[in-house]
């Protein structure tokens, strides 16, 4: 029993650390998004709170925390309260299976734990897909419970869009799964020692014929659509639907929706980095720390590589937002079903054929 409680305590500590990292990332993302958008549009972004506005997320958080919590008349109160929590929880628990660093074990209090992944389950990527598919419920329920036509339209749009693009996300990663031969994110990452899946890695070597670059492009585009970001932010299109599904939300519930959006952005960035860009692997064999004789610190370099990949994707999200205009709804649907889906299917077929003719050794 003591071992069980000890294990629970260690897991809890791991989970809290990871949630803390994710929340800090979310807070910095709200700042950097405004800052980078400002720079790209010849503005300054937030400059008032702290030097160069660096305390803006804190100020925003405090402001939203003390704002009045408004529930619209005629709203379904229980669902209205449930929706932001559901969205937030769903976008946070997906991080449990992401390997942030090398697959090493550590002995603490007589327990053997993996410090850089909370739960190394053997269906990790399916778990993430399942979690992501729950994310639509928060949006739909929030839109429905608000008793507002803008919210309802935003929720319906979100439902259709998330279903359509989740299909593409699921199909885009099948090629990677074929190459890796595993559903566990830890094993998938380990299979890409220094040649990543985007260039056609395999657990037993480097085969450029297996390149997954098309799947990668499909994945990134669909991930942008699934997190409701510009240019696919139709559920919250401010020029048509005020703010879409969170039009009627205020205060902390609004903050939950917004931070859930950033957290799910971070989650898809982590997944993209793990699946296509080798996760914590460097783009060269081994690590620099190993060459200079610091094997004990190799994990620092691994984590640095992972973080830089994730932040590259997050920057890409902002960059795309600064550049592209919003799609029309029928364009969105046509693009998802008539362009992305055939590409993803063709990628699966081609990868399957190449794997068949160059079987894993």
């Amino acid at each position: 029993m003591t071992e069980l409680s000890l294990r629970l305590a260690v897991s809890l500590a791991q989970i809290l650390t990871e949630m803390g990292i994710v929340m800090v990332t979310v807070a910095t993302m709200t700042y950097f998004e405004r800052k980078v958008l400002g720079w790209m549009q010849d503005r300054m972004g937030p400059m008032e709170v702290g030097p160069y506005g660096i305390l803006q997320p804190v100020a925003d958080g405090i402001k939203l925390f003390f704002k009045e919590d408004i529930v619209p008349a005629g709203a379904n109160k229980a669902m209205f309260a449930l929706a932001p929590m559901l969205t937030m929880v769903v976008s946070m628990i997906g991080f449990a299976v992401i390997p942030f660093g090398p697959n090493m074990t550590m002995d603490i209090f007589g327990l053997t734990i993996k410090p850089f992944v909370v739960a190394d389950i053997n269906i990790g990527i399916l778990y993430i897909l399942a979690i992501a598919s729950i994310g639509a419920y928060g949006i739909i329920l929030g839109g429905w419970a608000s008793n507002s036509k803008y919210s309802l339209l935003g929720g319906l749009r979100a439902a259709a869009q998330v279903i359509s693009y989740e299909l593409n996300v699921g199909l885009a990663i099948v090629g990677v799964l074929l190459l890796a031969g595993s559903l566990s994110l830890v094993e998938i990452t380990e299979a890409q020692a220094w040649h990543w899946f985007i260039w056609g890695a395999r657990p037993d070597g480097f085969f450029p014929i297996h390149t997954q670059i098309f799947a990668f492009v499909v994945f990134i585009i669909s991930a942008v659509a699934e997190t409701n970001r510009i240019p696919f932010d139709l559920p919250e299109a401010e020029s048509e639907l005020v703010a879409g599904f969170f039009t009627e939300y205020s205060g902390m519930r609004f903050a939950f929706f917004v931070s859930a959006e950033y957290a799910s952005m971070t989650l898809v960035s982590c997944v993209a980095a793990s699946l296509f860009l080798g996760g914590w692997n460097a783009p060269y064999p081994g690590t620099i720390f190993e060459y200079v004789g610091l094997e004990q610190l190799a994990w620092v370099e691994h984590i640095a590589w992972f973080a830089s990949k994730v932040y590259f994707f997050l920057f890409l999200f902002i960059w795309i937002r600064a550049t592209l205009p919003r799609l029309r709804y029928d364009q969105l649907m046509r693009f998802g079903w008539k362009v992305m889906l055939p590409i993803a299917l063709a990628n699966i077929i081609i990868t399957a054929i190449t794997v068949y003719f160059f079987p894993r050794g």
Partner: protein
Amino acid sequence: MTFKHWIKTITFYEILVGMKATMSHMLHYRPSTLQYPHEKRTLPDNYRGMLALLRYDDGTEKCVGCDLCEAACPSRVIRVVSAEVPGEPTKRYAKEYYMDMTRCLFCGMCVDACPVDALGMTREYEWAVYDKRQLDLNKEQLLAIGDRSFPVREKQLELQHPNVAFFNVAFKHLPQKPD
């Protein structure tokens, strides 16, 4: 669809061009905005800001209560209550003078209309208030604005060139009043 067009489509050529544009703006970052309350834009010379009532150098008001500004104002900002100067039956002055600045559109027609140059446009523009009734300015407030915006005042009409008292066209370096 030509081959070139097709290549452009599958390589996202146009999107990449757009992303290059945004990135170049970020790399060559020159903001075109100002940190407004801390640094302010230099105003143009003919800036038309807050209206003010002016005085002569001995402190007497220029306004003679003729109501021409009230007649010229397109937004009915100005309300003048004129009265005789006590003891001087030939002279009038503005007993009360109100400007409802919530309606003012800063066209400057009252300044043009004034025959004695009693109205001026200052360069003040930060007039946000919490209660819009505070923007219904009375004569004392308008005179105070004029005092702080034009510390150097004109001489009394009688002390200027004799023609000025009659025609009011003495200052050659000032813009002349249109006929």
